[in-house]
């Protein structure tokens, strides 16, 4: 019998099998989760809210169901963290903001309903940058170094998974908010294709750029979670016309003959040499497994940033327009500034940004005729200091951490293409995680997951956990 805390290091598939055969039970697993939480949380502040009583009650119910021969779903009895912008029935959902401090939803978000239907147990709500509108998640620390930021906006989810408190946490990604915290916290983060997972019940940041996805400890778990989360939902019109896919079953295909695009521009500009080296190493690992590396040049890559920030700030401000007039003082300074900026975006510029988006997507369509996946660093540098969240470049320029982290992620939001962050190395001096992202064709998450699995096998981050672990 494993020690309870060792259970938390098993992949989901293994845990699920052990639960099915009664080798472990949901109550032991829940206790192990709370034990690890008690050790880490004073250092991390990864959770906005934990209701231990409700969590343990759910675990006992799950155990009784198993004893009665009932299994609610494929992940019956497995704990999960939920980013605090997903509505949770009867549980406060503050979106990291004083604006929503008393908001208690009457209904679960679609993704929350799906994880409950799979039998998962909600440990609590993980912290978020206010309204998911930033990449640093102030107040939450990185498990690899508590003086460093956990990224954002799904910073609590990244920190909780990186520390091993939970196997999986839900996140949202509008400009990299799943991939960024996963990258700097040493976890796997999957932003599915736009429309793959319903956003119903998730507080919007930007309707045309928001995505829902999982942060997990490994690629196999990400595939399993996508199976749970994917599907059409009439309450989110973007999700029409899905095709059923078994992402886990497709993982075994390998990467032989896969054409891997290696960008020679954009992702090479203002990129820390160690982040670039992690991507170069990942390319050699894929090549060793039989993939073909194809050098590529992105056409007009600067357009993605123009489209992203025009659409994001205008849509976020539209959503917050009432509150910006009734109680603007409740927003944090940085988010209030962005909301004010969004108020000044001209309608003509917004519409032309949508037209530019067509151009960007056309460029990606052309690119993906030559390649099957694109490999690049996820973020341009490792986790910045919480006390000084900026990146200093060799030319003397400073770049805010949110801007520096979103730069490489946002093309996948503008294009809607699926993107997977996989841990691929550590910085030499500080030992901070570095990640690579794999972008794929629309609705071909199975291809990037397969390539991610190949990278994970070689990655020095595999099997490593941060210090202070129990």
């Amino acid at each position, binding site marked *: 019998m494993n020690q309870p805390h060792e259970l938390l290091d098993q992949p989901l598939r293994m845990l699920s099998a052990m639960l099915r055969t009664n080798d472990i039970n949901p109550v032991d697993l829940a206790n192990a989760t709370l034990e690890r939480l008690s050790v880490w949380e004073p250092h991390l502040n990864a959770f906005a809210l934990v209701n231990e009583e409700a969590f343990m009650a759910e675990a006992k119910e799950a155990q009784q169901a198993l004893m009665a021969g009932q299994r609610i779903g494929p992940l019956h009895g497995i704990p999960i963290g939920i980013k605090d912008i997903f509505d949770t029935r009867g549980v406060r959902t503050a979106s990291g903001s004083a604006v929503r401090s008393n908001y208690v939803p009457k209904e679960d978000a679609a993704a929350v309903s799906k994880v409950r239907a799979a039998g998962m147990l909600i440990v609590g709500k993980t912290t978020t940058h206010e309204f998911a509108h930033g990449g640093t998640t102030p107040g939450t620390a990185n498990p690899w170094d508590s003086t460093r930021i956990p990224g954002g906006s799904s910073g609590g989810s990244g920190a909780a998974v990186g520390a091993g408190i939970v196997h999986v946490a839900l996140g949202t990604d509008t400009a990299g908010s799943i991939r960024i915290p996963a990258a700097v916290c040493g976890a796997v983060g999957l932003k599915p294709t*736009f*429309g793959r997972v319903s956003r119903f019940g998730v507080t919007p940041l930007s309707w*045309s750029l928001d995505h829902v996805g999982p942060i997990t400890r490994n690629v196999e778990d990400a595939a399993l979670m996508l199976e749970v989360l994917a599907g059409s939902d009439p309450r989110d019109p*973007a999700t*029409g*016309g*899905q095709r059923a896919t078994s992402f886990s079953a497709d993982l075994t295909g390998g990467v032989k003959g896969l054409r891997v695009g290696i960008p020679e521009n954009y992702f090479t500009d203002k990129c820390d040499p160690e982040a670039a080296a992690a991507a170069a190493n990942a390319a050699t690992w894929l090549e060793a497994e039989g993939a073909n590396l194809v050098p590529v040049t992105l056409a007009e890559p600067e*357009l993605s*940033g*123009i*489209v992203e*920030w*025009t659409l994001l*700030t*205008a849509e976020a401000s539209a959503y917050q327009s009432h509150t*910006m*007039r009734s109680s*603007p*003082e409740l927003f944090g*300074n*940085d988010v*209030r*500034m*962005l909301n*004010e*900026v969004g*108020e*000044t*975006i*001209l309608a*003509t*510029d*917004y*519409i*032309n*940004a*949508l*037209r*530019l*988006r*067509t*151009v960007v*997507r056309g460029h990606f*369509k052309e690119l*993906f005729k030559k390649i099957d996946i694109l490999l690049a660093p996820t973020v341009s540098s490792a986790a910045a200091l919480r006390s000084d969240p900026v990146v200093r470049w060799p030319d003397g320029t400073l770049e*805010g951490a949110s801007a520096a982290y979103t730069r490489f992620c946002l093309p996948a939001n503008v294009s*809607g293409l699926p993107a997977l962050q996989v841990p691929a190395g550590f910085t030499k001096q500080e030992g901070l995680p570095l990640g690579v992202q794999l972008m794929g*064709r*629309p*609705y*071909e998450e199975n291809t990037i997951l397969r390539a991610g699995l190949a990278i994970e096998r070689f990655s020095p981050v595999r099997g490593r956990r941060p210090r202070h672990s129990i």
Partner: protein
Amino acid sequence: MTALQDAELRRIKDMLDLAGVPSSGRQVFNYPEAAMEIIAGSRSASRYPLKEAMPAVMSETEWEGLDS
């Protein structure tokens, strides 16, 4: 701050006033560089030669013919 940036900030103030966003505690003037960078980016969307490009509407059918 250049005269152009100064003029742009005045324009932002006027727009916020016209839109009815309360002036008390405004933050855009605390982060003028970040604010103007985003606004300048949005203006460049209208300067790009777009030819016949239609606005992107995100839906699965847009990707038909690419996924195999």
